[in-house]
């Protein structure tokens, strides 16, 4: 399992899964604390119309236009939610529900109406991703990691998600204090002259970038699961924000690696020949981790909650 076959078929998808999970889990920490957990859900739904429109405009399935289309759709969605909330005086949850379902429905309709049979673009792919297909065929073994010609054959999703993941890490570290203060005490942050609105918007944009990049590689299930499950589980493990973020990164990596292995090799161990969906399994593992944290996490209870009697 650790030989050349592993490097060829499993190393790259696993790494992509890890990078995507971490990139989503980091902003997820702050979204959860700000009670904006479902923003990730909304963003990952509206990415579909974005990439469909990008495809219809450019006529090709290429990464850059699709990323731009998806990012554009995410921005449009945020503006629409805000507009519906203000114009119609509707509570945020409902405004979000109206917006993302409508945009998603529009995306599906566009997809069905346009001729995409020649290209690999369909709803199921958008939902479930295609992690298993991101293999590194030019690799011959571990030594390929230092072989430039083999490295040239890496699936292009890997460097992209790696860059986005590093970007998210750097931004989180750079704006750590700002994020922390504005998340826990918005009034104090405003009084100290921090641009609270800008920080909030920046966080949503960072989440959108992470979602779009991860979506491209792994589909929207992982995106939503990773925005929420690892940070939520981490929240039940500790009271410190720094430790929570570290826990969440650990949980995200664990979900990605364990999920991928279970999906690829688990059925073999059970005597079946076919692997199951890796994206689905990664989401499932993150859910199991959250479930365990809910049952046994040292800080699972509400502060000041009465003992159950």
């Amino acid at each position, binding site marked *: 399992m650790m030989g050349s076959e592993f490097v060829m078929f499993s190393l790259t998808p696993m790494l992509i899964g890890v990078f995507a999970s971490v990139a989503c889990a980091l902003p997820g920490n702050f979204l959860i604390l700000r009670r904006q957990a479902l923003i990730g859900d909304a963003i990952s739904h509206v990415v579909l119309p974005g990439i469909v429109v990008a495809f219809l405009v450019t006529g090709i399935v290429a990464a850059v236009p699709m990323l731009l289309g998806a990012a554009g759709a995410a921005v449009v969605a945020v503006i629409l939610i805000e507009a*519906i909330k203000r114009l119609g005086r509707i509570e945020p949850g409902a405004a979000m*529900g*109206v917006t993302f379902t409508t945009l998603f429905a529009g995306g599906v309709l566009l997809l069905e109406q346009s001729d995409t049979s020649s290209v690999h673009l369909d709803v199921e792919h958008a939902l479930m991703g295609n992690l298993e297909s991101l293999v590194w065929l030019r690799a011959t073994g571990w030594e390929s990691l230092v072989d430039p010609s083999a490295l040239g054959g890496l699936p292009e999703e890997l460097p992209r998600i790696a860059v986005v993941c590093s970007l998210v890490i750097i931004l989180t570290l750079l704006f750590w204090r700002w994020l922390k203060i504005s998340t826990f005490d918005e009034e104090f942050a405003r009084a100290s002259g921090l641009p609270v609105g800008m920080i909030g918007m920046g966080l949503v944009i960072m989440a959108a970038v992470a979602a779009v990049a991860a979506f491209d590689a792994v589909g929207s*299930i992982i995106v939503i699961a990773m925005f929420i499950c690892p940070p939520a589980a981490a929240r039940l493990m500790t009271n410190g924000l720094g430790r929570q973020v570290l826990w969440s990164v650990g949980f995200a990596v664990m979900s990605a690696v364990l999920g991928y292995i279970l999906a690829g090799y688990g059925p073999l161990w059970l005597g079946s020949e076919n692997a199951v969906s890796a994206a689905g399994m990664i989401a499932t593992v993150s859910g199991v981790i959250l479930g365990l944290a809910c049952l046994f996490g040292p800080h699972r209870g509400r502060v000041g909650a009465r003992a159950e009697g």
Partner: protein
Amino acid sequence: MTPLLDALLLNAGYNAALVAIGAGLLGFAAGAAGTFLFLRKRALVSDAVAHATLPGVGLAFIAMVWLGGDGRNLLGLLAGSAVSAAIGLFAVEWIARRTRLAEDAAIGAVLSVFFGLGVVILTVVQTMSAGRQAGLEGFLLGSTAGMLFQDAVVIAVGGSLAVLATWVMRRPMTLVAFDAEYAAATGVNVPRIDLVMMGLVMAVTVIGLKLVGLILIVALLIIPPVTARFWTERSASVIWYAGALGAAAGYLGAAISASAPDLPTGPIIVLVAAGLFLVSLFFAPARGVVAAVLRHRRFQRRVHRRQGLLALARNEPIHDELTLRVLRDAGLIRADGVATETGRAQAAKIARDERRWNVAREVHQDTGLTGRYDGLTPIEDVFAPDEIAEFDRRIGGPRSVVEGA
């Protein structure tokens, strides 16, 4: 246009007619049940419930094949989806109540994890020999093309039952949705009603799976109630408005979808509902955007008219374009800006009322009366004639309204 007309008039085949009627009934039940969710501010819980149906569908298929039956039996699949939806709903409630995670985190976690598990199970189904033509993907976005007659019957009957249940439960649910504390005080068992409400939502979700699909069914629960709020302020009628809007979206959407190929049922129904929402957002009589803009314009003109008249009374020049236009339109000033006869009369009256108000605020220190001084309420509406006469006495004898004129 003819195929669409045929479909609308239920002439496009027996199945299509049954599906359209079923979609209408389902839309009604969804709109009505969704109203309670919306008013309880729990609209997105239904999204978790909907996504949580997927593992149940897959497991039900596997179980039915194992037992030697036809895995595609819709009733069996729906029963399976109901079980896993109930587990998902329970998980949301449990996480939100027993841990310190907020409800939105619980919703997102359940939604994504159950959906992920469902996808894993679907890939297992696809590797089964009976699973290749299972068509379970149809549950993601709904598909009515090639639907069996008995499936259409299931949807129509299920829709009717859901409407009936809404009708039976309407009073306690309305009470809880609008004022849970009052309901509890009058002896209503709020948790139980909440449970019934979620059960109804779950039923709607499950029945709608084949029609709208689990990703978009939440739209049918959210959009019609949100739309209905634009049309009425009365608690009892919101539900029926929402039901009617949902029924219209379901019926029209199913008919449009049946009229041409490549028009997937679920997305079309959602887009029809969204269209109704947009129309309401802009053109609803009281709460619509257009009505609000008109109201604002009217208010603005009244303020400008008053300011203009006061300026006339004080013989001050008016520079503001809008003020000049308002006064000119009302025939209070001539084109060159000089006050007309009516203009002078009204200016004099407004200046006199201004003095009366000043006195009134000295006499009545309580804000109950003088709080209504906003410059736009005529003083005759607030005080009786004898009180106004008293103010006039205090102001003193007649003087020239425009000093030094």
